[in-house]
């Protein structure tokens, strides 16, 4: 069966902490996810997302702290929101499914949300199939 490759940029303070909690709580999330810890979702450059696709990723997940008030750098999550919103539209114009990018707010305590989101995203990408085909 086709196994999607997914890069997940997880902010250190929330989404990545949730992934740690999932580990400690022995909750498992799909092995398709390759997590990369970033200081803040607002630091994820669109270039890094496209670079991930160019290097073989079929989907990119960005996990950050909840809006409006949880980002540890005040408004990095809003920056991420604006970037991803435009980037998705741009991808669509290029004929690439915008669903291949997913932005989620996951707090440090939401280990179950992280598991749910990653499972769900893997299924979405599985349905879309490999990016290069």
């Amino acid at each position, binding site marked *: 069966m086709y196994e999607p490759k997914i890069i997940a940029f997880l902010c250190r303070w929330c989404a990545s902490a949730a992934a740690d909690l999932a580990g400690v709580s022995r909750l498992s999330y799909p092995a398709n996810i390759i997590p990369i810890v970033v200081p803040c979702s607002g630091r994820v450059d669109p270039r890094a997302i496209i*670079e991930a696709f160019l290097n073989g990723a079929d989907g990119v997940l960005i996990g950050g702290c909840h809006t409006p008030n949880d980002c540890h750098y005040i408004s990095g999550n809003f920056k991420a929101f*604006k970037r991803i919103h435009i980037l998705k539209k741009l991808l669509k114009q290029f*004929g690439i499914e915008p669903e291949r990018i997913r932005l989620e707010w996951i707090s440090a305590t939401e280990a179950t949300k992280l598991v749910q989101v990653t499972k769900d995203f893997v299924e979405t990408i599985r349905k879309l199939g490999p*990016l290069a085909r």
Partner: protein
Amino acid sequence: MSSNKPKLAIVYGSVCGGCDVSLVNVGEPLADLLTNYDVIYWSIALDGKLHTLEKLERIDVAIYMGPIRTELNMKLAKLIREKADLVVAYGTCAVYGGIPGLGALIKPSTLVETMKSTVTTTPGSEKVVKSMEKEGLKIPPLTNQCLPLSVVVEPDVLVPGCPPAVENVEKLIDILKKYLRGEKPVKGLMLAEPRSLCEECPRRPKDMSKLVIPNIYRLHEAVPKEDKCFLEQGILCLGPITRAGCGHRCIKANMPCAGCMGPVQRVDDVGLKFLSSLASALLADKEKELGEEGLAKLLDKIVDPQGLFYRYTLPTSYLTKLVLKRLRK
């Protein structure tokens, strides 16, 4: 007709003609220069044929204008790189793909169909083409992609600008004068500034890092003030990521920069970079107040991000590479 003057060829890709006009526009300095060169190929001025170039052992200088869009363009591009000592990529099309580059991701057959079926095509042109073919003339087929010269061969000098600004054409003429004395420019010389247009712009805000874009207006929705940064007025201007060196022609005419000089040094994808800075500065003071929904609504006023961000550089975008990689698989 042979002379021992250095040989100069001015070669066309799929040009619009603007580049040629900009070259001729410099007037006297060009006329002076041309007396010292033997112009062997220049379709607008001479009866240049492909075999003229093919026969030559060596060309000294070749100036190439326009993108590579047809098989003939491709042939000429490779031919001049093989024979010429100094290759000049002249104009945004030759450097980045330019306006014709916007067709980079459209199938050639679709382009031809559109061309034939739209009102801008002269009625009866099909017939003309047919009768030409009877005479043995053939219209060169389109290449699969639209590429700038600079991607296919390595030019020695690059002159961006759609078309290049007088100042930069004069610089090129200086280089070609020096070449007569045996001086060659450093390889890959870009006739533009490494810094951004904003750094030279008379409208530059005092502290660019604190800039907030208050809204998004399309050009017809706003009457831009003549002394205020376009971004501060909610009109998207590509100045922050565009190379200076055009004499901020558009800004002077109260138009935002559309990016024809290409990206500043060290930026290779205009769109992704611009997107990133745009998102930071856009409504930065109202994020919490508007929330995600409110922001999304305003962001949707950017109706054509691809055309806005990549108007002149689409073939060089990472996204184009990604799509082409996907299509080739």
